[in-house]
């Protein structure tokens, strides 16, 4: 029962994210838009690239979707509304998201096309740079909650949301989350202007539909992870818990999606340099800071 509710929530959430995405990219706000596009993609031919690695070509989008769904499995939407509340939930989320990288490398390498291949390479460089920026802020969050369990993490924010407790970690995590979902301005693997779609360039029809759905799920998971770790999850007055989760998640997703409109795409070398040099030192500083605060001020 819980599983069905969560899956339904993921589907509805991914649809709403798709509406937001369409609004931010094409400037058309239409509630029916993504449904129409999805139907149209169903009807189009699903072409194979000329000499693909068939296995990787087919498996890439599906693995991406699976990684997103696994990530969604450990995110609490309301007390009790979680597929599995693992004792290592925060870490499991990382593990699931690591397969986004594997899926993109498969999707980029499989079609045997240069744009996809370069897109895959870029995502690898990007991933190694920001994986640290995801893990280390989560470490700081877990330090405060004294648990890796996601429900515990939410409950630890009853007094004060983590966004106020560790704002530095929040900023780092959101940037890294945008990198993981390859949202502009960090959309290097698909970079429309310089790779003509990159990893997506070779996919058509149903396969493209799966790839896009998977990406929406990943954006949704990253937004709800941000909410869980920093914005108090389901906590909030008056409205029911699930409504708070939904509202917060959609607001975060909208911010992530629209932020990229107002800045140009980051240069790859620059992005890597900032992640490694600045990002990692800042996230270490964040851990230290949170450790000191947790020892001195008991909130």
């Amino acid at each position, binding site marked *: 029962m819980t599983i069905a509710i969560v899956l339904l929530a993921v589907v509805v959430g991914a649809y709403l994210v798709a509406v937001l995405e369409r609004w931010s990219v094409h400037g058309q706000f239409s509630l029916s838009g993504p449904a129409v596009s999805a*139907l149209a993609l169903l*009807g189009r031919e699903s072409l194979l690239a000329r000499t693909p690695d068939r296995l990787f070509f087919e498996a890439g989008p599906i693995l991406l979707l699976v990684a997103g769904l696994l990530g969604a499995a450990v995110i609490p939407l309301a007390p009790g509304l979680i597929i599995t509340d693992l004792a290592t939930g925060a870490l499991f989320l990382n593990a699931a998201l690591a397969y986004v990288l594997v899926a993109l490398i498969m999707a980029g390498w499989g079609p045997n096309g240069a744009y996809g291949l370069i897109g895959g390479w870029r995502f690898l460089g990007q991933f190694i740079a920001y994986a640290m920026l995801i893990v280390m802020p989560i470490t700081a969050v877990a330090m405060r909650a004294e648990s890796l369990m996601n429900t515990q993490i939410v409950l630890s924010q009853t007094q004060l949301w983590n966004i106020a407790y560790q704002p530095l970690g929040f900023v780092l995590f959101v940037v890294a989350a945008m990198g993981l979902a390859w949202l502009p301005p960090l959309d290097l693997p698909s970079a429309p202007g310089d790779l003509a*779609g990159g990893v997506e*360039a070779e996919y058509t029809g149903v396969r493209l539909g799966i790839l896009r759905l998977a990406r929406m799920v990943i954006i949704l998971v990253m937004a709800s992870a941000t909410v869980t770790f920093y914005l108090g999850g389901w906590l909030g007055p008056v409205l029911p818990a699930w409504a708070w989760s939904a509202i917060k998640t959609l607001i975060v997703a909208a911010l992530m999606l629209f932020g*990229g409109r107002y800045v*140009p795409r980051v*240069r790859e070398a620059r992005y890597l340099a900032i992640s490694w040099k600045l990002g990692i030192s800042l996230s270490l500083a964040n851990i230290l800071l949170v450790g000191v605060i947790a020892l001195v001020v008991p909130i």
Partner: protein
Amino acid sequence: MIGARQGALSGFRRLIAGAMARDLCVFALPGIDVARARGIDLRAANLRLTITPRHASVLLFLGSLPKRLEDAAVVAYAQMPRPRAIVFLGAGDLPDGLHADVIGELSQAGLINALDELTKIISEGAFAAQVQEFDAPALQTRIEYTCPMHPEVVSDHEGNCPKCGMNLVPREISAGTAHAAHATPEQEPAMPPKSPPQATANHDHSKHTSAEATAKYTCPMHPEVVSDEPGSCPKCGMFLEEVKGEADHEGHDHHHDHSKHTSAEAAAKYTCPMHPEVVSDEPGSCPKCGMFLEEVKGEAEHEGHEHHHDHSKHASAETAAKYTCPMHPEVVSDEPGSCPKCGMFLEEVKGEAKHEGHDHSGNDHSAHQGHDAHASGASADGIEPQFMSMIELTEGQPVSPDGLIMEWIDVPFGPFFPGLPGGLGLDMSLDGDSVAKVSAHSLVSAGELLAEGATPPEKFVERLAAMSPLSPVSYRQLACLALESAAKQEVASSDATARAAAVERERIASHLGWLANLGAQTGFAMLERRATNLELTIRDANMDHIAALDPEIASLLARLRKSHMLRDKLSGTGHIDHCSATSGPVARASGKDDDARSDDATYIGLGFATVTGSGGDAAARLEQRLAEIEQSCELIAKAEHLSLPEPAKIGAASGEGEAVVETPRGAARLTLTLTDGMVTAADIGTPTAAHFTLIEAITQHAEIADALIAVGSLDLSPWEMRP
């Protein structure tokens, strides 16, 4: 609908067809820049622009395409998944093999009408019981076989390499291009999705192939024997060796570049026992390890002898070999017998003994870098005969600036690449993700100025304006000025001012168009949207309208000047030195005080002063163009009228005329000869021609995105190129 998908239109399919009719994804040819210049706003027509034909359902032709672009258009169409539709706007013909579903007028209204019609067509005809196969000459490919070690060996059928006996591997090349797969870039598919394998991860040697199209093979013993194909000598049966050093060979560094070996060969006398690559004319010590150099005997005599990359491992095996298996060429034996792999009788290899002697006498193997290692490696224990040496594979491969020998990938960018001007093709060799080599070509270059001989002046003006769809007004002005100078006519100064205002208006529009392209290229959606809207309004705006748009333009410029991320993205890319033969904003951005307008009495009357920048990189070019937009706004405000240049009545005048106009991209120069009121000769110099030559320098070793931004920052108009 011609591009329908197979299937009966019923039930669920009807629903899907309805969805497809509402979800039009458009790939515009020749490019979105041309659409804007023609005043067509695809977004306002509720279309979604796609970045690759793979994601598109509608192929939109904005007017008929130049001949050289047609094959690319056919390939783009072939890449689209069915059901696919073609909308043709304007007059003219579609490329051979393509048929329009809807034909409309080349205007915004025409586009909207065409789309209404298209919606009906798709919702009724997206699925058809019978569909036609689509095929066109540009899509033909054929398989040929090549040796992984000897790329010059190309065969039409499977078999073994005559040089090393390895199995030939198949590869796909486009038809009609014979053995020179990339020599005719217009045959290259438009977008890499379906590009031939050399754009892929495969270690494809097609880059070598154009060399062999002209390469000759000759016998080392009988120089009079020359053949176009590899094979054996009719006199002695030896394998023919490729003759290199022809002009076509240049630029194919990949092609077992022996320059270093040959130069070493001629001069080398001393080498380090540890570092075979160290060769010296004089005795001394090795710069790497300090050991004494050893003399290499018998070097100098063989100078100039054609040294082919005959892999020593095979060569040394061959020299001793007398019997080999017809199926397993790697099996060689001194004695007759049966093959250890398949049990077949070994066949005698004829002419080997001779081969041995001559092969080695001519070749300087010890100066050959790394040769020692693998020559003796072949005889070392534990190495199986079929083992393929990576040293041999990587030897002679180009080395990246970071010292790593990496796989080069050839990737065609364009002519319909979303981040580049439509019609511009860049063939890049990528070394990882940085650019190792690039060759640029325009597929939309203008034809002859005077295609039909003597041309009446009015027609000449129209032709020149039509030739450059991205800046027609400037070229119209250029033609008018040149005609008037030939006919020795004076233009009233108020007219001249009004014309200048029109040129300035176009400059603003063109620079805004460049900003929109920059926005699209860098994923800066806000910039793209605002610049596109402004460009579309200002192209046909009158004086009052332009004045009304001023605050909007100013706010966009202020926003861009404040954008640190944009500056960060652009600075340092595409640096050009002051001395280059550039003109226009590109030259002025590097501090060159060069503007054709500064000598023009009309502009002096308007108080024109050249604006220059400094830096010479893409960021400086952005600053320069922003400053020029402001300047042009001021110039228009000072001019009182605005009118398009119209050619004056020339009558039957004769004479020679010359004119220079500062187009949005730089100074264009036109000389023409008038004979009895007809233009009989004309010659034009465009800024793009000079800027085209910069592409190679500014993209060298740049990361791919930086390289594309550097190319974009030149604001090239491929339409201005002459074939």
